[in-house]
């Protein structure tokens, strides 16, 4: 059995239109999954269902052998944390220290242990010097780092990033991605929702959602060869993929130059 298993999941917000439909998904421990999909394809909905914020209409979710129900949601949330898009709307504490502590406080971690862990994880995300700072004095990237530290301090083993980089400037974005890489190396399971195809290419596997259904879920290299998946799901084509296609179909230099031009113009 896989680490994360989703079986025949259906979900709708109002009972009419299905936002997620027959989702079947298996994620192994330590995998880095990128999730792509057009606006409204159901990525955030899937993420919220995974942490038990939304209750599926049909189907089951099982994490580390534990079936997600109302009773087990508390246990499951110890294993799985989520970083949302807007850094400001998930910073609960008045200071960095308070915010990292928030999850642990809810788990009734003794105070001495919390102090140790806060120092440890703040150091890990390079926020040790900021422990007494208030969120207004932090950049968006730093707030996201704090959110990660708070999740790690709860000893979570899975982190979902729901467009966690989309509101950051290019520099902070790169920092965060770099950080996600180290987390991956340390064995955490990562599900990264993104609109940035270049970010997605860093993952082991890519999940493509299209109108609430899984369009594709494959190793990154494999999916890169499938132009139709991207076209079908209304996604931006990775430039590398386009160039490779151009090369393959016809080794004509002008054609490749034209593709590069197009790419440069759209960026």
């Amino acid at each position, binding site marked *: 059995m896989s680490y994360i298993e989703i079986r025949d999941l259906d979900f709708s917000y109002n009972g009419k239109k299905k936002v997620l439909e027959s989702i079947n998904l298996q994620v192994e421990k330590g995998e880095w999954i990128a999730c792509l999909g057009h606006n409204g394809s159901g990525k955030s909905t899937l993420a*919220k269902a995974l*942490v038990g*914020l939304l209750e599926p209409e049909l189907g089951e979710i099982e994490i580390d052998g534990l079936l997600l129900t109302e009773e087990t949601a*508390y246990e499951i*949330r*110890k294993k799985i*944390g*989520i970083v*949302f898009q*807007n850094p*400001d*709307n*998930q*910073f*609960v*504490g*008045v*200071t960095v*220290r*308070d915010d990292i*502590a*928030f*999850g*642990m*406080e*809810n*788990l*009734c*971690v*003794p*105070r001495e242990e*919390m*102090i140790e862990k*806060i120092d440890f994880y703040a150091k890990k995300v390079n926020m040790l010097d900021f422990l007494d700072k*208030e*969120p*207004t004095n932090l950049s968006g990237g730093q707030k996201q780092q704090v*959110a990660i530290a*708070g*999740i790690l301090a*709860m000893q979570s083993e899975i982190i979902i990033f729901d467009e966690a980089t989309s509101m950051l400037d290019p520099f902070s974005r790169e920092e965060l991605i770099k950080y996600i890489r180290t987390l991956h190396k340390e064995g955490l399971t990562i599900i990264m929702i993104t609109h940035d195809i270049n970010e997605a290419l860093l993952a082991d596997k890519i999940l493509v959602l299209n109108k609430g259904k899984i369009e594709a879920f494959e190793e990154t290299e494999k999916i890169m060869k499938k132009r139709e998946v991207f076209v079908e799901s209304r996604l931006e084509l990775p430039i590398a993929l386009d160039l490779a296609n151009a090369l393959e179909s016809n080794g004509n230099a002008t054609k490749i130059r034209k593709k590069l031009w197009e790419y440069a113009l759209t960026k």
Partner: protein
Amino acid sequence: MKSVIIGQYIPGKGLFYRLDPRTKIIAVLLIMIAVFLLESITHLLIGFGIAFMLLIIGRISVIKVIKGLKPIMILLIFTFIFQIILNREGEMIVNHEMYLTLYTALFLVLAFVVWRVLVKFTRFRFTMFFLFVAGVYLILRYVDFGYQLLSPFNFQVYEAGLRMSAFVVIRLLIIITLSTVLTLTTKPTNLTQGLEKLMHPLKKIGFNSEDFALIISISLRYIPTIFDEANKIMLAQASRGADFSEGKLKDKLKQVISLLVPMFIIAFMRSEELANAMESRNFVPGNKRTRINELIFSYRDVIATAFSVLVLALAIVLKVI
């Protein structure tokens, strides 16, 4: 818009910073009650002296406390004036005629204009206000020539009026000084935590002090963020030609609405997302939680509490005898 400071907490050292917030809250309450029990001006003045000494012991800048008094200054002045004019008990101390003539009226208008202009250009607003009030008094008193708009009237100050106004003002001064010390030296988070702990016994009558503390701390957390946001929206609208500083009342109202609508929409989404973030980090309302910020009650707190109990006891004794 300047960046907002919540409460008036100013980081620092000194005795009051090291006291437990609970101690400070209790002490301020006890001393407030004591102040209301005192019935003679001398006692009150002694009380004021003690409050002042506390400032010095705690190494708190008097200027900062005076700044804290500013918002309430107008209230104090009006209390003073109303008590003096309206209270007609006891001996009459001052009694003289006042006039309202055409010239008085002209001078009054002139004084008003000068005051408003000076306020725009100088930093001493309160001094200016005092000078204006004094000016109004002098004009009413001495400008007795010209066409009489009103027959001369008597300006009378009675002993009780003077005493009562002094009473009210000194009392308020003491209370505000104390509470300013409280807010100057206590972080808002600690203050709410102190309140939470003190109100814990109210759980028996169905008041959940933890929920209350959560409400306060979330508000404290989001006030600066919401102000930033208001700033951004105003800038965005200003860049499209909106002008928030000028215009008729109707225009202003329109602008305020155009500010409030997006702010409420954003706040709505924000609360939804914040609730999700809290829930995903295992927050369950009403569940037991440990705290990173523990309050520690030390020997200093014992002394401070004892001191405030003593003050109250003294006030009760003075009241009884």
